[in-house]
């Protein structure tokens, strides 16, 4: 188990503020946040590569804050994999064991096993510059696991991969975690990765942890506006509570009344979060079932990906709406088309407004 207790560190103008984390043994834990949030720095502190200004790092209840990186036995894979360019794949993987003083025969035996496990035996005598991104990642993982670490730290391991390699590597890591039961702490800013792999996630921003929990809980119920942004909530508005009745709030957002679940007293400023995928959109001419919130608007632009289409709808409330893509290269809506968008009260997350967070 890894535990961070009140870790703080100042580096130039950046501050890591009072970071506390509990990563239980065998868990796949994600640190998620934007670039510059301090995610990699947290990994480097756990690995012993950076010394915190205050606080403690515990590994299986042992205080390792002052233990040198080389004595921690924690696996680390950087985003660029940082393979040793002057060593072959075989020597890269054997490096840790050599440093541990293992015999040559043990080194060779373990190298063979790891190369086989990661399907890279055929690359054993190649140099890193000749490898693809996916191959480099597998070598880096094999090298990190060669020292038999109880914990593996991964710094955005999929960032440099093409989509096909990325999917393969994600599956590979999922299998590795499942088969080895190793504790993994991974940095990412991709919700897909978190949904696919994580047991738990911590949202991090500006050197502080905003929220921790299971991915579905954190993404569905961010506790602050900033957490909602990091969790990928596309529609965030400020409003004022106009009415409160039976666990519902009616909130005035730029002159539009939105109904959401909440118990805030009238007059309170609040923040509304509505995920683009939770919204239903219909052509204006079509009838709709009764639903709590209906807004008219005009489609002004669309971003089409493999499976989805995100529509920017202008109107009294500018909103993003994500729908499954129906036809190849086309969505069923045209730019300039008048539409109606619907969402229920359950899909409106009402958060308290905080001056501190807004600025």
């Amino acid at each position, binding site marked *: 188990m890894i535990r961070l207790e009140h870790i703080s560190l100042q580096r130039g103008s950046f501050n890591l503020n009072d970071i506390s984390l509990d990563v239980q043994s065998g868990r796949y834990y994600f640190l998620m946040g934007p670039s510059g949030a301090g995610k990699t720095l947290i990994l*480097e502190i756990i*690995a*012993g*590569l950076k010394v915190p200004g205050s606080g403690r790092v515990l590994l299986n209840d042992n205080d390792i804050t002052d233990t*040198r*990186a*080389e*004595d*921690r*036995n*924690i*696996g*680390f894979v*950087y985003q*660029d994999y*940082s393979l*040793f*360019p*002057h060593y072959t794949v075989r020597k890269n993987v054997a*490096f*840790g064991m050599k*440093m*541990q003083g293992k015999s040559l025969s043990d080194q060779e035996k373990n190298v063979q096993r790891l190369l086989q496990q990661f399907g890279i035996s055929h690359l054993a005598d190649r*140099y*890193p*510059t000749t490898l693809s991104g996916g191959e480099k990642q597998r070598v880096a993982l094999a*090298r*990190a696991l*060669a*020292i038999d670490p109880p914990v593996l730290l991964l710094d955005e391991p999929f960032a440099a991969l093409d989509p096909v390699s990325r999917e393969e590597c994600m599956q590979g890591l999922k299998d590795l975690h499942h088969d080895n039961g190793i504790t993994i702490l991974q940095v990412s800013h991709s919700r897909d990765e978190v949904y696919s792999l994580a047991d738990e996630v911590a949202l991090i921003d500006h050197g502080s942890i905003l929220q921790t929990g299971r991915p579905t809980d954190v993404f569905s119920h961010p506790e602050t506006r900033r957490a909602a942004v990091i969790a990928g909530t596309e529609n965030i508005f400020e409003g004022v509570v106009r009415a409160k009745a039976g666990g519902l709030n009616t909130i005035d957002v730029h002159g539009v009344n939105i109904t959401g679940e909440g118990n805030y007293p009238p007059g309170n400023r609040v923040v509304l979060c509505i995920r683009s995928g939770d919204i239903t959109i219909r052509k204006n001419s079509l009838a709709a079932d009764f639903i709590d919130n209906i807004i008219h608007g005009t489609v002004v632009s669309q971003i089409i990906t493999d499976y989805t289409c995100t529509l920017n709808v202008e109107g009294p409330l500018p909103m993003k709406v994500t729908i499954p893509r129906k036809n190849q290269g086309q969505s069923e809506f045209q730019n300039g088309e008048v539409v109606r968008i619907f969402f229920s009260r359950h899909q409106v997350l009402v958060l308290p407004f905080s001056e501190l967070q807004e600025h």
Partner: protein
Amino acid sequence: MEKAPKTAKRGVFDWSILGFWLIGGLLVLFIVLAILSIAVPELGNPGHLADVATDPSVLLTLGITLIAGLNAVAILVLIGTPLAYALSRSTFPGKGLVESIIDLPLILPHTVAGLMVYLLFMSQGIIGAPLGNVGIVFEDAYPGIVVAMVFVAIPYYVNTAREGFETVPVRLENVARTLGASRSRAFWHITLPLSSRHIYYGALLAWGRAIGEFAAVIMIAYFPMVISTLIYYRFATGGLSEAMSVALVMIVICGVIFVLFRLLLKKKEGPDDQA
């Protein structure tokens, strides 16, 4: 019908680079002319050149110069490498001052450098006096040549080695440390091999600078003579032709060594290239 766009033919000479060559080539021409101005007259009298090239005093001086240069480089590699590494991996107030101090021998007149070395290593100097007590003498002695050479070559080696260390990402050392390597083992196994080309090149530059030094060397050790002292001596006592013969022998030897070293560096599959 639309005209097809002009496409560059393979193997066609890039004329745009010719202008750069015409201007920049003047510097190469300058050096070649300087060499020819010595070589042509000397090669016109091969007998005399052969006499000088086989003159035991010339050969002894050449030997002293080349070996003193190697000693100076050995000292620089031993002491300058840790300094270069520390500079590449540290940030602290006053780092710029330390770097300026290291660069000082580059900008000082060589006579001033010689004077400084002399004051330190003369028999009453703060380093020369105690070492003199244990029998290490610098004035008009081989160790004096070496310390003068070290002094003038410091920035050449330290700066080149530091640049080499800076090309090695700190992350490689970090990974090595998480794999169980101490800081010093990470340096030996990762950083040093990956910056070896810079280290070799820095050593070559320092050696070249060291064996060519004249003013700083004669301030502390006129004797035993190094090659530049001998050339000056022959010029002062025997005239231009005497000096030119020795100079040509030196040019040939240094040229051969430098070309060989460059070829070796090129042949060596440098980890710098792979990084």
